[in-house]
């Protein structure tokens, strides 16, 4: 399907929230998609339909309703397998989101495998969710956490990776496929081939990439892959972790409780099959169903079309923003190496002030450290403003953003 056949204007009609007004009758311009995305009717209706017509607990009871709920829940697992291209559905674990996915790996894999003196390697542009779990783990195990540095274009310095791999002590390299602040797309192929050569496992945080481009986990060749539903039109509180079976089989359970067991005796328990060993308790069934609807929606538009739409928007926004006097954009200018996330600072105006003034025009952008304080330190700033795009955004909205920045300039006498 070619981009020309997709009407991105019609797509807006699927998102009821885009019809509401903000502040004094301003149309909502939602540009905080790296944080969370809006939800189409198809997703809202799927959740609604689940509660109205199919609600029951899964995997247990034998009555018809329970069977329907189980089927709906498990269908999403198959949709995910197709969506990110992995062949074994039992390698996919439902979690609350990327944060929980990474914590699960740090807990269940890390506790079983990490020893004193071992090294975990992350990067300077990670979200706190791909830093803090590793700090907790390495502190507990007296292991070390090291960082792949970032150059001034916002790209990773892979010589750092070589240096750490050469020690022979690295057990895991963990990195995001796309930075949530700079939009940089990591050179996954290079990183993973280096790690494979060294016999080191890799974890990819796909939270920012999965919603915006075709991701083929099998081709990537990583060992762990995590993403969140709410950044890809799905509900909050649901995401998935994929783990290569040979690795998953060596991991201990994350949470103990119902559904994750085979047999429970007074003093010992045997575990359920994969993936249920890692899904204790009644899961977030309704939102799993909602995530399934989000995947259907995205696949109907086509991931390549979505990427193409965002490349066009990002190129346009980069061009327009760079014409604004006093505005500095962080990260690479090479659109092929970045997603639809643009972080900037506007002269000496603090990002909170920028965000508040343009909020008056109905424009929602993010300001702050974006849960990436290590990166803020590397950029030597306290905060940035960040505009991030998705399928329902338009060039007209970017024009509104640019116009609103003129208001900031006027108020702050730039």
């Amino acid at each position: 399907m070619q981009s020309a056949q997709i009407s991105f204007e019609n797509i807006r009609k699927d998102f009821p929230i885009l019809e509401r007004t903000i502040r004094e009758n301003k149309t909502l311009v939602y540009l905080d998609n790296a944080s969370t995305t809006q939800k189409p009717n198809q997703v809202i209706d799927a959740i609604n339909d689940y509660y109205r017509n199919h609600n029951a607990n899964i995997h247990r009871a034998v009555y018809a309703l329970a069977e329907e709920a189980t089927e709906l829940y498990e269908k999403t697992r198959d949709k995910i397998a197709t969506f990110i291209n992995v062949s074994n559905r039992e390698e996919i674990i439902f979690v609350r989101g990327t944060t929980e996915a990474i914590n699960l790996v740090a807990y269940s894999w890390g506790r079983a495998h990490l020893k004193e003196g071992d090294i975990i390697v992350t990067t300077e542009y990670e979200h706190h969710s791909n830093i803090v779990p590793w700090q907790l783990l390495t502190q507990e195990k007296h292991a070390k956490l090291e960082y792949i540095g970032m150059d001034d274009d916002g790209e990773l310095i892979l010589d750092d990776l070589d240096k750490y791999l050469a020690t022979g002590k690295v057990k895991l390299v963990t990195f995001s496929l796309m930075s949530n602040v700079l939009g940089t797309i990591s050179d996954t192929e290079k990183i993973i081939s280096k790690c494979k050569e060294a016999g080191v496992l890799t974890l990819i945080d796909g939270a920012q990439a999965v919603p915006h481009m075709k991701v083929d986990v099998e081709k990537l060749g990583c060992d762990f892959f995590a993403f969140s539903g709410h950044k890809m039109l799905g509900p909050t509180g649901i995401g998935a972790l994929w783990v290569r079976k040979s690795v998953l089989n060596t991991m201990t359970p994350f949470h103990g409780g119902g559904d994750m067991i085979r047999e429970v005796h007074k003093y010992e328990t045997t575990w359920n099959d994969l993936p249920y060993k890692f899904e204790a308790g009644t899961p977030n069934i309704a939102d799993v169903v909602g995530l399934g609807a989000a995947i259907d929606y995205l696949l109907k538009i086509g991931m390549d079309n979505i990427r193409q739409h965002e490349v066009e928007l990002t190129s346009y926004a980069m061009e327009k923003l760079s014409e604004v006097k006093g505005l500095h954009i962080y990260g690479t200018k090479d659109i092929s190496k970045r997603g639809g996330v643009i972080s900037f600072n506007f002269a000496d105006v603090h990002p909170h002030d920028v965000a508040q003034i343009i909020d008056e025009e109905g424009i929602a952008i993010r300001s702050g450290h974006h849960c990436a304080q290590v990166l803020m330190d590397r950029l030597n700033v306290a905060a940035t403003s960040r505009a991030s795009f998705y399928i329902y955004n338009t060039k007209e909205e970017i024009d509104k953003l640019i116009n609103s920045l003129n208001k900031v300039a006027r108020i702050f006498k730039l």
Partner: protein
Amino acid sequence: MSNADIYHEMIIDYSRNPINYGKIEDHDVTFHDSNPLCGDSIDIDMKIDDDKVSDIKFHGKGCAICMACSSVLTDIAKGKSIDEVKNISKTDVLGELGLENLQAVRIKCALLSLKVLKYALYSYLGKHLDDSQDVDKLKEEAANLY
């Protein structure tokens, strides 16, 4: 309160040219705090002579609201007795800048420096006074400021 009202001349001026900005090398007390969600970060240094704040300076990174309120707050506190400084309230700071109706999400920007000041005073009093009840009260007030 609309944004146009918030970003008036005084706020913009203070954010560009904060007063009492800097460090006091021979301070009697210093305190640092930050807002975890936005990353605003403020340090306050104080010189205390004869139970009076004889000098006070702040430094750090913050938005226009944060910088303006820090300027105003340090100006209010300068030269005041410890008792008077203890009684500085949030309305004293917000009122000075016409920010009484500031929306909840920005209150933490406006009051970060007041929180730091209260904590600084608490840490000074904790070291120099025996009246632990007084110190506890101040600590509680600082913790519940916003």
